[in-house]
């Protein structure tokens, strides 16, 4: 049959259109760019780390694995949202980093039970970060490193202003005010005034919690409103840096002297040390009230296996190899690029970089004052609380009535998750 030009063009147009349709969303990382291992192809997703060298490092680890062809995808942007959506489809990752998994992800069966991988090594994992990965007695992700948030302060600026490192929330309010000048603000808690970065830490500093161990609301107490009211005071005093080009998770504002104190992550410690030498110290969020104690959140990205993976067993084998057997890689990942505490207690104990100065203080605070967010503190509860905190800080909303409304919402959310379990 002779094919006319019209037929050819018509077929071509159809083919191109279908090609376009099928191409949409097909980049799963399962094809191309693999490590070259002999076994099945595994797609492994990481969120984009800011520290140079991390991406190359994880690709190097993947390339060293010989039993599967592991293809690493480095995903910038809203990683948590990306993975949450990808887990609903067959085109998601096989293994992936997760800032969780959340209770709903576990209960909907989106992640695979990894308990068996911890045989004989469970006690070597930091219990504070293993607990939120555990539900129903099973472990759903392998903690990769321990991360924490803490308060950085500039020693020389405090000395110049005659201010000592604050030991209570009241002292923090006073110190921030005393340190504020025309060009330098006293404290940076994030461009939202601390609602997101501090989250529930002030509740723990007041001796309370987000959700108690027996699954009840942990802040139905006047001490909560009192502590949150002090964050409003910081804002009302104009002691807070707001509108910085880089948000709280980046130490730029602190090292560029836009602020004398900043709430930031342990990951920023090498960058701060490089810029300021020893002219800085770290603290937990100071205690509030007689029942309070200094507090800081510790958490961990975990490595999980997607329940939709076609190669679940191979994926588990890979994770066992990478995050349980390869101590050298784990230490390299934690300390050679950014700055994190290894999730394995044995590795954390012998890491030389964690033994002196501010790093040693941070490690000590993580065990003495660290808390981790329980699984029952669901995203819906977190959003309701953060919205209320934002209104308290920025709009001067009444802390008691705002918290009353949050307690109601969190109680309803806890009822929902209990009903389903």
């Amino acid at each position, binding site marked *: 049959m002779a094919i006319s030009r019209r037929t050819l063009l018509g077929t071509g147009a159809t083919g191109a259109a279908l090609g376009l349709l099928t191409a949409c969303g097909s980049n799963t990382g399962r094809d191309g760019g693999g490590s070259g291992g002999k076994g099945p192809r595994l797609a492994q997703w990481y969120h984009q780390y800011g520290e140079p060298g991390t991406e190359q490092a994880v690709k190097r680890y993947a390339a060293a694995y010989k039993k599967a062809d592991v293809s690493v995808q480095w995903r910038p942007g809203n990683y948590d949202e990306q993975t949450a959506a990808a887990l609903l489809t067959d085109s998601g990752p096989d293994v992936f980093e997760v800032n969780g998994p959340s209770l709903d992800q576990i209960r909907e069966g989106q992640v695979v039970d990894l308990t068996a991988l911890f045989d004989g090594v469970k006690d070597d994992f930091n219990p504070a970060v293993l607990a939120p990965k555990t539900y129903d007695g099973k472990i759903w992700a392998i903690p990769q490193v321990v991360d924490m948030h803490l308060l950085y302060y500039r020693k020389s600026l405090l000395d110049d202003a005659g201010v000592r490192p604050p030991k209570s929330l009241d002292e923090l309010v006073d110190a921030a005010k005393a340190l504020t000048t025309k060009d330098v603000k006293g404290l940076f808690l994030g461009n939202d005034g601390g609602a997101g970065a501090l989250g529930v830490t002030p509740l723990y500093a007041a001796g309370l919690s987000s959700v108690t161990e027996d699954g009840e609301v942990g802040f139905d107490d006047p001490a909560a409103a009192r502590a949150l009211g002090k964050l409003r005071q910081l804002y009302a005093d104009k002691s807070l840096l707001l509108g910085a080009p880089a*948000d*709280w998770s980046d130490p730029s504002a602190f090292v560029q002297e836009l602020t004398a104190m900043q709430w930031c992550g342990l990951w920023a410690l090498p960058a701060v040390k490089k810029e300021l030498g020893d002219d800085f110290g770290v603290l937990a969020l100071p205690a509030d009230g007689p029942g309070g104690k200094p507090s800081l959140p510790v958490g961990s990205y975990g490595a999980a296996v997607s329940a939709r993976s076609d190669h679940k067993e191979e994926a588990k084998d890979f994770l066992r190899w990478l995050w349980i057997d390869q101590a050298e890689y784990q230490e390299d990942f934690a300390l050679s690029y950014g700055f994190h505490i290894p999730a394995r207690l044995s590795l954390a104990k012998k890491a030389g970089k964690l033994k002196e100065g501010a790093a040693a203080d941070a490690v000590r605070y993580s065990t003495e004052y660290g808390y981790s967010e329980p699984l029952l503190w669901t995203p819906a509860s977190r959003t309701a609380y953060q919205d209320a905190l934002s209104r308290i800080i*920025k709009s001067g909303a009444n802390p008691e009535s705002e918290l009353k409304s949050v307690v109601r919402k969190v109680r309803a959310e806890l009822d929902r998750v209990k009903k389903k379990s």
Partner: protein
Amino acid sequence: MSRFLGTQNRTLWFWVFVGPFALGLILFTYVPLAWSVYLSFFDAHNTVSPDDFVGFDNYTSMLRNDAFTDSLVTFAVFSAFIVPTTFVLSLALALMVNRLRRAQAFFRSVFFLPAACSYVVAAMIWKLSIFNGVRFGLANTVLGWFGADQTAWLSTTDPPWYWLVIVTVRLWLQAGFYMILFLAGLQRISPTLYEAAAVDGARPGWQVLRHITLPQLRATSVAVTLLLVINAFQAFDEFYNLLSTSSGYPPHARPPLVYLYYTALGREQNLGLGSAGAVLLALIIAVVTIGQARWFGLGRKED
């Protein structure tokens, strides 16, 4: 076979060319829409194939939800700012450019160019360069020359300076586009009307504008207003990029699409509740648009 190749079987060729795109429309628009309506009747946390039917619970909880109703208020406030300001500015630009005897094409291009810029890029420039809250932001530098304190444009709610940032970025981006629509409308007005008005003694300026130009631009004005309101409903990019932080989005100035994005696709992954919100929003947009079109008499035959 010959009948496939000939012109006589137009139906076949219609489907060959239209079919793939119709298929795409069905697959990527209508099926997700129908699925979303389906999901809205289920408790669908982290799943698109739920089995826990909850009837209208998602709808009632969405309607009782302060965050959703606040987002509708945000939309109303935003529309109240952006619709009249864009309308007036683009009309003013069109009138100015239309009167130019020289370099009209140049000024038309200059005012239209921002429309080619992405909302995300413009929002980032506004946020990081012009309206950042520290001493080296452009706005703060200029105000600093007059001794003013640093203003955290996007972080203060009292006064709500963030509206200034949100409205100006959108004005900059879209005034040029609507200017082109008005220009097209202006150029369709017959010069004889102005001549007749001049003969009748109408004073150039406000009187001619009010009695000749604006009535002649009625159809364009109605279309521009409708488009502006629909665009305001769809506001997402600049709000999200200006106000969201690494820890989330503040409760103030959260338009409906941003709220639904966080509910359905954010970490909350409450696809049932998010879908109910999307259905409610679609209904509201439909009612407002139809009401507005009827009020303006869109589609009614000219007398």
